[in-house]
């Protein structure tokens, strides 16, 4: 039962990263690819109707994590107190910038929100990456499964790490590169003319950085977290996930060449999904490894919630997600055709 919930929570978080990832990515490239007000409105318009739907995956995924693995939720949220609060501030700033930019037709107003939108997107990508880095590296859990990390200590992974060290910063930069590519591909797909061409150029350049960073974080992760190699060796079928990531990354390159915008974007989705699922499969059964004593690490067995609740939850989860799919299909069909901004977004969305 707890393994099923591990897979479902991982799925919801991965959906969140893929979906909100493209609108965060659009924010990262926003200032560079769109120069005039009309161009910038096109970029924001491409994510406007979908960003809050994408963020629902964070809220719903967080809620499901809360009830399925209460001990994990409690330990990690309190331990990552500072970065999570900053993520909240960034989400607030980013959400308001998308929503409020169009309300006042003044160049000053728009310019202010454009910068807020871009900066908050950049920082969110780095923070989410660093958070993932922390989970993979392990945190200084004590025997009660409790820890607290300051923002940084000596920038070295070890028994007393901070949120930021060279490794988590590396993962943060990798996430920034990956979401730049992901969001860029979204903009290529959803817009036309100069904006699309500039986005395509950025994707072409950042792709090389993504390759480099992927190699770097993979090497570093296997070195720092021996559990990854053990996990993958224990479940050889799990190799399909790294293969998916590599295929996705090559697919981005190939389909960008072919000018097949939709397939290039989907390949990027596959890359991100592949990376996240590789990490999840490698760590399993750990959900939060300890940097102190491996025995202190939280596993799906030690962190899951009471049995009856998990069984009941499975029933409503299936009903709820079926309904959500229903709304998505309804929305998609209504918006299919001309206003592609909404239609495709919903199509990818669910």
């Amino acid at each position, binding site marked *: 039962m707890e393994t099923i919930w591990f897979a479902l929570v991982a799925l919801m978080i991965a959906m969140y990263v893929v979906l909100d990832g493209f609108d965060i990515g659009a924010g990262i490239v926003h200032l560079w690819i769109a120069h005039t007000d009309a161009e910038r409105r*096109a970029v924001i*318009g*491409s994510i*406007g*109707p*979908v960003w*809050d*739907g994408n*963020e*629902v995956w964070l*809220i*719903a995924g*967080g*809620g*499901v994590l*809360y*009830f*399925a*693995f*209460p001990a994990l*939720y*409690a330990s990690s*949220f*309190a*331990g990552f*107190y*500072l970065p*999570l*609060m900053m993520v*909240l*501030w960034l989400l*607030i*700033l980013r*959400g*308001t910038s998308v*929503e*409020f*930019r*169009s*309300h006042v*037709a003044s160049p000053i107003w728009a310019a202010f929100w454009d910068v807020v939108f871009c900066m908050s997107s950049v920082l969110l990508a780095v923070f989410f990456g660093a958070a993932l880095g922390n989970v993979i590296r392990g945190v200084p859990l004590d025997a009660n499964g*409790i*820890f*607290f990390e300051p923002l940084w200590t000596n920038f070295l992974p070890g028994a007393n790490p901070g949120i930021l060290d060279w490794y988590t910063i590396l993962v943060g930069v990798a996430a920034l590169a990956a979401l730049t590519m992901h969001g860029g591909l979204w903009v290529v797909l*959803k817009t036309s003319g100069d904006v699309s061409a500039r986005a395509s150029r950025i994707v072409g350049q950042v792709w090389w950085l993504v390759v480099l960073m992927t190699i770097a974080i993979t090497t570093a992760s296997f070195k720092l977290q021996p559990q990854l190699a053990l996990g993958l060796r224990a479940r050889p079928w799990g190799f399909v996930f790294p293969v998916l990531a590599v295929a996705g990354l090559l697919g981005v390159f190939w389909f960008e060449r072919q000018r097949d915008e939709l397939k290039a974007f989907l390949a990027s989705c596959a890359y991100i999904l592949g990376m996240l699922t590789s990490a999840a499969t490698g760590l399993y059964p750990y959900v939060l490894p300890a940097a102190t004593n491996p025995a202190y690490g939280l596993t799906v067995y030690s962190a899951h919630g*009471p049995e*009856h*609740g998990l069984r*009941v939850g499975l029933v409503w*989860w299936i009903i*709820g*997600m079926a*309904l*959500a799919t229903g*709304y998505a299909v309804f*929305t998609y069909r*209504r*918006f299919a055709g001309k*206003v592609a901004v*909404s239609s495709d977004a919903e199509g990818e969305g669910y």
Partner: protein
Amino acid sequence: MADALFVHRLHFAFTITFHYIFPQLTMGLALLIFIMKSIALRTGEARWNQAAKFWGRIFGISFALGVVTGIPMEFQFGTNWSAFSKLAGGVIGQTLAMEGVFSFFLESSFLGLFLFGEKRLGPRLHWLSSMMMFIGSWLSGYLIVATDAWMQHPVGYAIEANGSFALTSFWALILNPWALAQYAHTMLGAVQTGCFVMAAVGAFYLLSQQHTDFGKLFLRVAIIVGVIAAMAQLSPTGDIQGRMVATHQPPTLAGMEGLFQSEPGAPLAILGQPDMEKRRLDNPINIPYALSFLTYRVWTAEVKGLDAFPKNEESDNIPLLYFSYHIMVGLGTIFVAILLLAAFKLFRGTLYTSRATLWILMLAFPFPFIANTAGWITAEVGRQPWLIYGLMRTSAGVSKQVSAGNAWFTLLGFCGLYVVLSVLFLFLIYREIDEGPAGHNSAPGTPTQPQPAPAD
């Protein structure tokens, strides 16, 4: 540690108080917009549609702020109250997760359709999307109230060997009698916020002689719905909620009423300040026997005062509990009076020219926000010193690993950010009201118009 506990409590109190400004407005407006869309569908009159669209824009701005200030609420269960979450997450995580899965997907899908899709959907489906928004936001309200209700009156659980709470009955959790009573009371409060805001805009339009047709329309809807909600707020829902507290949380009732000594035929205090040193109410104005009657339907029944309970079971802030309760009830009573007066004049056909009444309606809109907030303070301060009533003390639920300094840091961060959000919110709402419902040609509430696709 006491110091850190205080900051964590303040952290949650501040962020939830600010957050709830927006949901009470959007839940109230969701009903009113749905009513307007229903009338538009039935009569085919364009002005009802325009009115619904205007309030849809205000809904959109408020909804966005509700979303961005709502995410911190879910996070704080883990960040600031991790000891509580670790033990109780298996129960209250159910309702919180269900809110995400059942309401937020619904709301986010149909809000987009409502704001962007009118032409594409046609009148029937556009009406349907307003209904789905209404259902989504009211369902979300229920699941949150059910979460709080479990903390007020825990049901359907068992305590496991490691001290954590396990769900034993899903339906007991969902149909908690406390949740049903509290939900009815909470939603009527939200409806009144929506009605008073709508009436204030209507009165403003009439008094400033702009968009007067819409002003009259807003007033009519708001006052008819509002007067029903305001009366039902006091009785039966307020009454049921009060007796629920009397039955399950008697020390809370004593604190709310400022009743220090148990007595038969207890009076109802209308005014007076609790003096916690001398354990009495200063300069009280009482209605004799009224508290006994309201609580037990018997004029001479004995109501237990604070002296009947151990001191460590009474709320740790009785003055705040007492005043927030009295502010809520006092304002609720005034709302009934204002709305009855307005409804009477509406019925007589003199409301639109009665400047005094219009002025009152225009200036009254902040008060339902205050009353709703005071109501929640009553519920949450009244629950103290318990986090889960009778089972877990608030001091046992806090994240011990997060120091007071870190909590102050993020609390101050939220304060700064929310000041900015407040200014922006008021500015944008004022612009929408100033622009008015007619002839608004730019993009609706949320972002820029979708751009036509290059291909396909």
